[in-house]
């Protein structure tokens, strides 16, 4: 690769991953609402229909439950569908097929089938689309054995983890924050994978471990830069995968820093932050803790329409800065 690596947006990276997989494997195809000529509500599938035709970039009727079930049946019988929910909120209509069928089919049938299904969930708030188009529901699926649940935070990981998901023999659910789609970043050409189930230390630091998911990784890195000026040194971990959780990377980091903050957009109660706190509290890192474990997460409300209110219900950079500062200063 040359000195300045090629940059793509998060959406382009996902599109490229799908194109590479479809080129390489006849069994891979796309299903979803308005993913063809419209290019997808967020232009992720873009012009793929022109390249691969309507049989491999299939517009479905507005039938999330049935569409998901069709994808499950196709996956069970040899195809490798990639199913796009137009908004992750609409997955509430398909939980039956995702949770009762896709997640459990292999187990219920004693290992006689696999369900190599990929589902994509455009998630999160910040677009002014109000309570039914802004949810972050990854914790639900993270609670379901049989599924794998990932949340890539960068264009690089979006492409690499999607390619890993397509190659995976089991159902993989990808939560993509809508505000990331336009974010650009270096993306290698061609085929590569980023492993499902491995977190990554995005920034090494001495004082506080911040475990962040999806868009919060970028807010955490911003907070780290701001605090560096004050001599507070954050270690930022990009969780990347909700299920299976990479507990060891978090444990190792906390043993070093002795302080932990988790930050995610989904509602705080029973969000992934709870699992991270519990993981440390039950681990041998517990004895290394110098302070309580802080959680930053979405407020206990639906997402409001008004933009000021909308911002207020989701953790922002200053919230991370304040939490980390208080933690180091022993203010809690």
């Amino acid at each position, binding site marked *: 690769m040359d000195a300045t690596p090629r940059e793509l947006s998060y959406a382009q990276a996902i599109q490229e991953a799908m194109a590479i997989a479809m080129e390489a494997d006849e069994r891979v195809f796309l299903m979803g609402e308005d993913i063809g000529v*419209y290019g997808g509500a967020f232009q992720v599938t873009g012009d793929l229909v022109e390249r691969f035709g309507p049989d491999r970039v299939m517009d479905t*009727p507005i039938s999330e439950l049935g569409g998901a079930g069709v994808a499950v049946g196709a996956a069970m019988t040899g195809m490798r569908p990639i199913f796009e929910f137009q908004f992750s909120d609409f997955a509430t209509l398909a939980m039956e097929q995702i949770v009762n069928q896709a997640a459990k089919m292999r187990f219920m049938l004693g290992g006689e089938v696999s369900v190599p299904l990929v589902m994509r969930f455009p998630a999160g708030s910040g677009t002014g*689309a109000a309570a039914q188009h802004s949810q972050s529901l990854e914790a639900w699926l993270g609670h379901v054995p049989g599924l794998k649940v990932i949340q890539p935070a960068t264009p690089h990981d979006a492409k690499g983890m999607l390619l890993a998901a397509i190659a995976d023999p089991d159902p993989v659910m990808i939560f993509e924050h809508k505000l990331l789609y336009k974010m650009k970043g270096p993306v290698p050409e061609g085929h590569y994978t980023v492993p499902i189930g491995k977190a990554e230390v995005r920034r090494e630091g001495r004082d506080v471990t911040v475990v962040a998911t999806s868009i919060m990784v970028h807010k955490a890195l911003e907070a780290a830069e701001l605090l560096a000026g004050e001599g507070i040194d954050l270690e930022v971990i990009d969780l990347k995968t909700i299920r299976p959780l990479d507990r060891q990377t978090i444990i190792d980091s906390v043993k070093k820093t002795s302080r932990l903050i988790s930050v995610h957009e989904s509602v705080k109660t029973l969000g992934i932050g709870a699992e991270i706190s519990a993981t440390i509290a039950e681990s041998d890192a517990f004895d290394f803790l110098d302070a309580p474990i802080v959680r930053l997460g979405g*407020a206990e409300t639906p997402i409001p*329409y008004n933009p000021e*209110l909308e911002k207020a219900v989701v953790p922002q950079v200053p919230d991370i800065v304040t939490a980390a500062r208080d933690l180091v200063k022993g203010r809690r």
Partner: protein
Amino acid sequence: MTAARKKPTSKQTLANLPFAYRQYDAAALREALRKMYLIRRFEEGAEDSYTRGLIHGTMHLSIGQEASAMGICMPLETADQITSTHRGHGHSIAKGADVKRMFAEFFGKTTGYCKGRGGSMHIADVAGGNLGANGIVGGGIPIAVGAALTAKKMKTGNVVISFFGDGANNEGAFHEALNMASVWKLPVIFVCENNGYGMSTSTERSTAVKNIADRAAAYSMPGVIVDGNNFSQVAEASHEAVERARAGDGPTLIESKTYRYRGHSKSDRNRYRTKEEIEDWMTNRDPIILFESEMKEFGIIDDAGIEAIREDVKREIAEGIEFAKTSPAPDVADVARYVYTEEQA
């Protein structure tokens, strides 16, 4: 909205006139035209405010579908209820909402119908009988059936209208809701506004049946097809369905064939349809133009009267936008309100 039928206002004999002209008096018909203008100008005003950055998020405009919303609501009383969709501005105004409070909602202000918490996709007017737009395609259909169940249990005599689009008719919720409404003979009317597309997907590509009204047979209810851009036809179908529902004879499915001029939402490149198709509808089948010329033909209104309506609507829209602009924004400290009926500790 309803008004007693009256003598014909034109030289023609009553009997030859289309339904609406037999059923409603001139004042009611002029008010209907005014409302259709109000809907259109409201959405043009909202679109303009969006472009100016006064409204954020997205919105779904029903410009071109005004006769459908107005005709359906014509026979309704205030106590009757509707459930609406993401494309619900017209339904809201036709049911009697105040454009001031609608603009205020779009502007995210506390004076809005949802106090700035809902926005366009959740515009409602519970007191006025609008149980709300819905962000979930098909989400409002079973809710309407539930409201009709209340009407039957409480013997209120109210009817409920469930508006939804052609795309929604492929949702499981449509099937389950229509089946229950029919089995329980509930006073609900299902109004499918078929504008030819669910977002980018034409009914041909999404729906296995030619007319959505043909699906009524699967629920043993009448299925009626009307030209959704013909006010009188829509009003007549609604009138009959409402009478049937009030009489306790159960639900009706009305398919109102219409067309949206604008893109699906603010992010639509219109790749899935031709300019010609859009042009044809705008120039040859515009619901307001058609209604106006009929009313003129039957001597119910003249150019001066139309001009007066336009001016009046213009003023009302301007006042509405001004009201929205000058209304207070919610206090961020109140963000946790309305999650529960009694705020929680």
